[in-house]
């Protein structure tokens, strides 16, 4: 297991270094997040629906689509000079490759969310100070689930035509459970309700994470091997 994690970290470090060098995907995702929040901010009628009722959905829709950009680039960079072929010839285990990509994607999406959350607070004037820690906890819990599934699907579509279109079409149905859970918990937190009220949703998010990290890591090799 130590060997698997060491190799996963080698892959993740390489991905993050490449992203740091080019910054194209990260910048795109951050700008995309800011633009979506801006559009939602000016495109709603605050007298029709209270901001506090709308805010959780807006937050999670924004995070989900920004994460798509990250997931799309995860295997795209392995097509450069067919590096993926080199990875598959090497002794790198498929499990290490999956976890390496998962770690890099999580880091990437976390950065986008870290930029997106303050912008969300700024645009929608939602007080999150008193619930910041539980809110961050929910964001982490939901992000792990959808990035785990997204990493699997991004590997699956990479050799298809129109991979960037295929990914959201295939992935979004699988994201409904964690999205619903995350919106429900966030709504209760922002409304000042106790976290215990959302215990069922939190359990759903945790179960989704465990099940889909396990399932995706098992199925991953079938998506990359010829």
């Amino acid at each position: 297991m130590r060997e698997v994690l060491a190799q996963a970290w080698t892959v993740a470090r390489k991905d993050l270094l490449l992203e740091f060098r080019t910054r194209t995907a990260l910048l795109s995702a951050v700008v995309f997040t800011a633009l979506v929040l801006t559009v939602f901010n000016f495109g709603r009628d605050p007298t029709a629906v209270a901001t506090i009722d709308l805010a959780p959905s807006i937050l999670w829709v924004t995070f989900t689509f920004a994460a798509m950009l990250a997931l799309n680039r995860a295997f795209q960079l392995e097509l450069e000079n067919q590096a993926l072929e080199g990875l598959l010839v090497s002794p790198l285990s498929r499990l290490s490759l999956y976890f390496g990509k998962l770690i890099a994607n999580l880091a990437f999406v976390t950065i986008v969310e870290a930029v997106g959350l303050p912008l969300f607070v700024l645009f929608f004037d939602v007080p999150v100070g008193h619930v910041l820690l539980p809110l961050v906890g929910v964001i982490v819990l939901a992000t792990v689930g959808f990035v785990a599934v997204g990493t699997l699907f991004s590997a699956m579509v990479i050799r298809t035509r129109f991979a960037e279109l295929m990914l959201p079409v295939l992935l979004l149905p699988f994201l409904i459970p964690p999205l619903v859970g995350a919106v429900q918990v966030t709504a209760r937190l922002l409304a000042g309700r106790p976290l215990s009220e959302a215990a069922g949703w939190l359990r759903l998010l945790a179960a989704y994470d465990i099940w889909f990290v396990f399932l995706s890591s098992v199925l991953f090799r079938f998506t990359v091997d010829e």
Partner: protein
Amino acid sequence: MLSAEGLRHRFGRVVALDDVSFSLTPGQTLAIFGPNGAGKTTLLKVLAGLIRPQAGSARVSGGRRAIGWIGHHSHLYDHLTVLENLLFWASLYGVPAARRGARAAVVLERLGMSDRAEQPVWSLSRGLVQRAAIAKALVHDPQVLLLDEPFTGLDLAAAGELRALLGELRGAGRVLVLATHNVDEGVELATDVAFQRRGRFVQFAPRGGRGAAEIAEAYRRVVGGDRTDA
């Protein structure tokens, strides 16, 4: 060291491998000649573990760690430097952290690329990228080298240097499998020669004392001018 037994593989109706069997021991170099689409690349991919054959088996002593692969693509990341690429691949092949830098320096020196170590791959010419790809394939000191058209993109001097390097590796007991459609390339390196046509080894024999002209003549006689295989 390396063996293949009854390999068969098809892509739909196209036969890529048809009952291919052979084995090689340390110091042997097999040159596989065949027209485009004869199944040479498929055979190398099966040996490298990239494709699972539909029948038969291939075995390399030492597994994937023992294989160095030079294919049609460099497998290098354009936005990493040559050295960063080598260190990354060395790490994946299990070269201990303390030895990676020294090992990378040795292969870069041998390929005349020491002064390019800190250059990003995107800034290199095609010939230099090919040399960097060869350095990547050698960085973990593989026991078996699988080479698919390795001379592509190299100028005459670099191709000569690569031939000399491969000769050294053969002398050091490495097993080399070289696939090419050009009979003039790599003949002098080979201890064994195979002609592949429509997935099948139509001839597989030690090179003996045969030179490039004799091999080319035998190739024309056995394979003919067939350019439409597979």
